């Protein structure tokens, strides 16, 4: 038959055979695609809606924003990103949600701020959307997110307090961070310095570095009087000293910030900051930390690991110069500790476009968007197991310019955990800690300041 057809049309038999095979493959793939669509949801069910997505000015936001045209084409929903600098964003988020303003539909949050927002019914629980087959595609695969991240964003609100472990889902992760020490290899090599492992070692290294080159800030750490400067270096190192933000004493929740371990930690940490950090420590947020390590004005930094990764990306001035190590540990401890921060997308409970908002959250945290963002060098530390099993991401992250990023990530992740006690009142207690830290760095007595801090925290409990 093909021979006859070919002869009739003036083509060779081989050409016709190939054409038939192609046609068969096309039909088969079209059938498969139709089958897949049958499992899918109607992405255009909220066509014409317009939503606002608020977030921190952050490469994670850039990764999603870059793919927004695809979402708008898929759904017919218009998304307006509103991005703000870090400090301004958190304050604005609280005001927007607490005033029940419907103007933001989807917001970026971490677990800790969500603890304060959820009990006031300012965030929309997402279980209803996740479990609705008309709203959530079968291929979304919520269980693909690392269990630790899912668990951290799931809790019950009982008598105005957080009860972790089970309950409602309050946000969906789309990137996470663990706290590491990252450093400029070129600077440490130039001055023959070893990577420090404890605060006293760091202090000694800083003194050497300052003596060798006074223009370099040895260590970049956040110091603003806001909880964000506690949740990175301070809490990670403190945990290795045995410090707990809260503990149960005589059956009651009690602050652990005036314990002997806490005093020991603060003495070492304050000494380290005085010897190592920039004079502008009190005003430094993550923007200054990243800028310092990128420009080479800072030799080392303790913060979220992806800040090192982003600056190692090919084409950046510091590409290939930044390497990674676990965060510092107490001198008498065998193990380092690392706090985690989960950038997540949540829904404003006052949003009037919840269906469209959910489609956006679902799309932005889907396997494909996560993978695209990761291999674009922006959504690093992707929260899905499937991304970490994907060859494209693993090959990209293992490129030589990223030095030991993957190996360090794996070793740190084994010990990375949420270092704070889940509770309403997180911001108040941690803001007070950040202010106390500034006071101690400026010369206030450690023991007295911690006693005052503990008393302040107790009065607000």
């Amino acid at each position, binding site marked *: 038959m093909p021979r006859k057809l070919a002869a009739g049309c003036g083509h060779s038999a081989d050409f016709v055979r190939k054409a038939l095979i192609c046609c068969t493959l096309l039909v088969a793939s079209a059938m498969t695609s139709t089958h897949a669509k049958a499992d899918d949801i109607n992405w255009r069910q909220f066509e014409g809606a317009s939503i606002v997505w608020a977030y921190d000015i952050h490469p994670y936001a850039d990764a999603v924003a870059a793919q927004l045209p695809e979402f708008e084409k898929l759904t017919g929903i218009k998304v307006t990103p509103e991005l703000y600098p870090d400090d301004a964003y958190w304050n604005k988020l609280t005001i927007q949600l607490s005033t029940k303003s419907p103007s933001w539909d989807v917001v970026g949050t971490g677990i800790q701020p969500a603890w304060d927002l959820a009990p006031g019914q300012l965030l929309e629980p997402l279980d209803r959307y996740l479990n609705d087959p008309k709203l959530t595609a079968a291929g979304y695969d919520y269980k693909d997110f690392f269990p630790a991240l899912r668990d951290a964003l799931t809790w019950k609100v009982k008598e105005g307090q957080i009860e972790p472990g089970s309950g409602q889902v309050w946000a969906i992760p789309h990137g996470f961070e663990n706290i590491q020490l990252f450093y400029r290899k070129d600077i440490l090599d130039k001055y023959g310095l070893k990577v420090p492992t404890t605060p006293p070692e760091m202090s000694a290294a800083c003194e050497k570095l300052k003596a060798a080159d006074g223009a370099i800030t040895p260590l970049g750490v956040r110091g603003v009087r806001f909880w964000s400067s506690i949740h990175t270096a301070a809490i990670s190192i403190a945990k290795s000293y045995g410090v707990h933000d809260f503990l149960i004493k005589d059956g009651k929740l009690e602050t652990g910030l005036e314990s002997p371990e806490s005093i020991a930690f603060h003495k070492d940490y304050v000494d380290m900051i005085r010897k190592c950090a920039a004079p502008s420590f009190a005003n430094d947020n993550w923007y200054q930390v990243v800028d310092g390590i990128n420009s080479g004005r800072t030799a080392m930094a303790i913060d979220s690991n992806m800040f090192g990764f982003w600056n190692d990306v090919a084409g950046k001035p510091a590409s290939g110069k930044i390497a990674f190590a676990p965060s510092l540990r107490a001198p008498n401890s065998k193990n380092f500790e690392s706090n985690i921060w989960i950038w997540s997308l949540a829904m404003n409970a006052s949003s009037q476009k919840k269906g469209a908002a959910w489609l956006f959250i679902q799309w932005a945290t889907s396997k494909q968007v996560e993978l695209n963002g990761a291999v674009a060098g922006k959504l690093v530390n992707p929260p899905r197991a499937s991304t970490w099993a994907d060859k494209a991401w693993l090959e990209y992250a293992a490129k030589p310019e990223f030095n030991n990023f993957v190996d360090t990530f794996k070793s740190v992740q084994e010990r990375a955990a949420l270092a704070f006690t889940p509770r*309403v009142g997180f911001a108040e207690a941690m803001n007070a800690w950040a*202010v106390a830290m500034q006071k101690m760095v400026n010369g206030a007595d450690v023991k007295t300041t911690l006693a005052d801090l503990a008393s302040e925290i107790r*009065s607000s409990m």
Partner: protein
Amino acid sequence: MIATLQSSTSQLAPSKHEAARGIEEARLDWRSIAAIAPAIIILLGFLFLFFYGVFQSLTDLKFGRPLVRFIGLDNYAALIKTADFWNSVRATVVYAGSAVFVQAALGLALAKLFATEVFLARLMRPVILLPLVLPPMSVALMWTTMMDPQSGIMNYLLSLAGISRFAWISDPATAMFSLVLIDVWTYTPFFALIIFAGLQGINDEIREAARVNGAKGWAIFLHIELPLIAPYILIAAVFRLIESLNQFDIIFGTTQGGPGNSTAVLSVRAYITAFQNLAFGRGAAVMVVNWMIVLVGTFAMVKLWRFVRQRVS
């Protein structure tokens, strides 16, 4: 006699004309009330919001707390027990007092300069007003960059004069000074503008008369001009004092109240307590205390202004 009586009764009883006028006046009153009703409603709205704020300060309103309880003066009692609160009161008064004082002095000097016919002074008149038209948050961000101890231009300029690195807003010892400097840079033109208007209003004949009587430049300024422009200085000071005691943008945009609590004025403390720590009841209490300080300060300044104005006139 009858005529006299009639005349008397007509005098006692209101005439038709008068009654009509009374009705008209009543109508006029209703019209007046209708005319000022929007103003009354707006005023009541303001008062309601203010008293609602005061009411909030008497509750334990906080996020995540299912019930809001009336706790009387507990928030205030808790506040006055803490050293940080008194530090905030001190910071508020020091910031506002020193900023207004320096602005008045510099504003007076600038206004005097503008009142001359020097070409450069005339040229500078519109330029000097530029800081006033900048949004305070932009001013804060601009100065934060300039005052960076390592990479800011301020330290570079000081280094040209051989002065070593200054910590500016990063050190509790210098942070308040730096904030006052920013406030002075921003609002001195306001004083200069008002005082300049005052100087322009002085009749030249008065100066001429003083000169004829042998008074020299400094004496004319001290004994003629200064008393005459004093009410202008004081009215500018009233406006600036109210604003400085409530100043938020410049302080929050630069130090956020730090380092430590060195620049945590009451408005910043209230904001952090309410919107970062989510303790609205306590935040409202701090705001009410701030309001009382503004009220006392303003009353004192207005009383002084009235006294000076009476003496001048």
